[in-house]
C-alpha cells in the first residue's frame, strides 16, 4: 500500500516515522542538481580551455572524461560528503537514508547513483519517476537496488504560543473536566489545522477568514459540548483561540491542583 510515511520499529519498541519524499519534490531537487552540474561543468571547461592552448587533444580528452566524471560523481560525492544530501536535496529538505533506518553506506550511494542510467530512461527520469509513483516507499529503481529511501527532513519550529494567546481570558478553562476531554478527543492533525489557521489568520481575505473559523468552530463544538455560558457571545475565532490554548498549553498550575 502506498503511504507518505515509513514506520520503523526499533528493538526498544519505539516507533518512528520517516516522511517519504514524492516524485515531484525529488524531480525539482534534481533540476537544481542539474543546474549545479551544468555550472560545475562550465567552470571545469573554462579551466580546460586554458589547457587547450598548449595541447588541444589532451584538453579534448580531459573535457570528455571531466563531463562523464562530474555527471556520475556529483551525486556520489555530494551524498557521501553531505550525509545523503545533494545541493538540490538540501534546498528541498530531502535526504537519502537507508530503508531500515541504518547508517547510509558508501556502496549504497554508488549503487543508487549508477542506476540513474536506467532510471533516467528514456528522458527526464521517466522510468524512475514512474516506478517511484507506483512504489509503496516512493523508491526509484536505484533506491530499490541500493535499499534506500528519500525522506523529507522536517523543519523544526515551535509555535510562539505566548504571542498568539497572551493575556486572553479563556472561558473553556472554567470547565476543567470538559477541557481535559477536549484534549483527549482532538487528534494531532486537527490540532495542527486549528493552530495553523490562527498563525496564518492575517493572510486570509476577511470573508474567507470568517468562513474558515466558522467551519473550524462548528467542528470543535461537535467534539465536546461545552455549556452555553462558556461559548455564548464568543466569536468563532476566539473560540478556536480558546481551543488551541486548552490543547497546546495543557493544564495550568491551579487547575492541576484542583484535579489532585
Amino acid at each position, binding site marked *: 500500500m502506498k503511504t507518505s510515511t515509513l514506520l520503523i520499529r526499533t528493538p526498544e519498541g519505539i516507533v*518512528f516515522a520517516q516522511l517519504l519524499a514524492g516524485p515531484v519534490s525529488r524531480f525539482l531537487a534534481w533540476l537544481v542538481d542539474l543546474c549545479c552540474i551544468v555550472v560545475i561543468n562550465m567552470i571545469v571547461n573554462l579551466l580546460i580551455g586554458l589547457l587547450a592552448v598548449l595541447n588541444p587533444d589532451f584538453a579534448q580528452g580531459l573535457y570528455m572524461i571531466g563531463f562523464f566524471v562530474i555527471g556520475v560523481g556529483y551525486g556520489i560525492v555530494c551524498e557521501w560528503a553531505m550525509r545523503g544530501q545533494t545541493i538540490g536535496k538540501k534546498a528541498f529538505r530531502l535526504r537519502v537514508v537507508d530503508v531500515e*533506518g541504518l547508517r547510509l553506506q558508501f*556502496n*549504497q550511494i554508488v549503487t543508487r547513483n*549508477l542506476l540513474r542510467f536506467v532510471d533516467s530512461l528514456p528522458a527526464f527520469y521517466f522510468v524512475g519517476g514512474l516506478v517511484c509513483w507506483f512504489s509503496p516507499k516512493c523508491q526509484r529503481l536505484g533506491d530499490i*537496488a541500493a*535499499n534506500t529511501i528519500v525522506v523529507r527532513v522536517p523543519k523544526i519550529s515551535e509555535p510562539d504560543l505566548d504571542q498568539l494567546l497572551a493575556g486572553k481570558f479563556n472561558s473553556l478553562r472554567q470547565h476543567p473536566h470538559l477541557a481535559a476531554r477536549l484534549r483527549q478527543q482532538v487528534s494531532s492533525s486537527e490540532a495542527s489545522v486549528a493552530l495553523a489557521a490562527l498563525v496564518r489568520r492575517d493572510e486570509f481575505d476577511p470573508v474567507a477568514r470568517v468562513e474558515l473559523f466558522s467551519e473550524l468552530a462548528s467542528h470543535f463544538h461537535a467534539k465536546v459540548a461545552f455549556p452555553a455560558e462558556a461559548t455564548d457571545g464568543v466569536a468563532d475565532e476566539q473560540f478556536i483561540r480558546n481551543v488551541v490554548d486548552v490543547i497546546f498549553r495543557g493544564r495550568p498550575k491551579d487547575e492541576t491542583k484542583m484535579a489532585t
Partner: protein
Amino acid sequence: MIIDLQKFAAAGRPTWTELERWLDRLEDKHRDRMTLDELQRFHRLYERTAADLARIATFSAEPETRRYLENLVARAYGEIHETREKRARIQPLTWFFQTFPQTFRKHARQFYLSVTITLIGCLFGGFAIAYDPGSKSVLLPFEHLQGDPAKRVAKEEAVARDELRGAKTGFSAFLMTHNTQVSVFTLGLGITWGVGTAIMLFYNGIILGAISVDYIHAGQTKFLLGWLLPHGVIEIPAILIAGQAGLVLALAMIGWGTRIPFGARLRKVSGDLMTLIFGVAIMLVWAGLVEAFFSQYHEPILPYELKIGFGVCELILLVLFLSKSGKKGSKFQVPSSGMDKGNLEAQTTRHLERETPN
C-alpha cells in the same frame, strides 16, 4: 496520557540538544571513534530521547516536537544499530589485487552465464552474416564496418601517415567514457530481473560474432586478430564482468533458492556490485588507451604478429589476475566485502522482527 507540554519540553530539551550535538559530531566526522564512556553516554541519551518520543506519541497536540524527536531517534538509531563493517580507509592496491578478483571469483557462475549469453549472441550474429550477408546493415551499427572487409584492410594498410595524430587522447577518452556508460547500463539493467542485462550481452555478442565471421569469411583473420586482440581481450571481459554484475543484481532481485528477505539480499550484494563495476571501469580505461594508441595502427606501421602477441600476453595476464590474485595464502589481508554471515543473520532477524505483525 495528557502531559504538560511546556514542562515536558523544558525537562527534555537538555537531553535532546546534547544528543543532537553528538549526532552532528558523529555524522560530520565519518571516522570518529567514541570511547566506552562516550558510547554509554550516547546510548543513554538515545534511550531517554526514545522514551520521550514514546510519551509524546500519546499527546495529540504537538506534531512538530514529535517530528523533531522522531528525527533525533531515527538518526541515533542508525548510528547505534548499524552492524555492517565500516572501513577505516581505502586501500587501493589491496582492493585491486585482492578484493576485486575475489569478488569476481565469488560470483563465477554469473560470469559463466554472462559468457554463455554472449556466445549465443556471437553464434547468432555469425550465422546471420554467413547466411545473409545483407543483414550486415541491420546488425552492425558502425558505418565503417558495413563495407567489404578486404577493401577496408587494403585502405588501412595503405595509410602511411598517422591519421589519429592530434586526436588520440580525445578518441581514447571517448572510448573510455562510452564503454563505461555501456557497462554501467548493463549492470543497471539487472534490476529488470536480468532481462535487460541478458539483452545487452546478447546484442554485444551479435556484433562480435557478425564482425568476426565477416572478416574471417573475407580472409582477413590476421587483420581481425591484430585489430581486436590488443584492446578486445580487456574490453570484452570488462563488458562480460559488467554483465556478471547485472546478473548478480538480478539473482538478488529474484532470490532464487534463498530464504533471505528481499532487502537483505540486495544489501548483501551491494558492495560486490560496487567492486565489480569499479574494476570494470579500470579495465576500460586501459582498453581505451590501448585501442586509441595501439590497436588502430596496422601493417606496415605495426606488424600484426606484435599486436597479436601483445593481445595474447594481456589475455594470459588477465586470466592469471582474475583466477589467482588474492587467493588464500596471499600476503594481503582480506577485508570483508560488506557483510559477513553474522551481520547478515543479525539484519535478517531484525528485518523479520519488523515484518512480523504483532
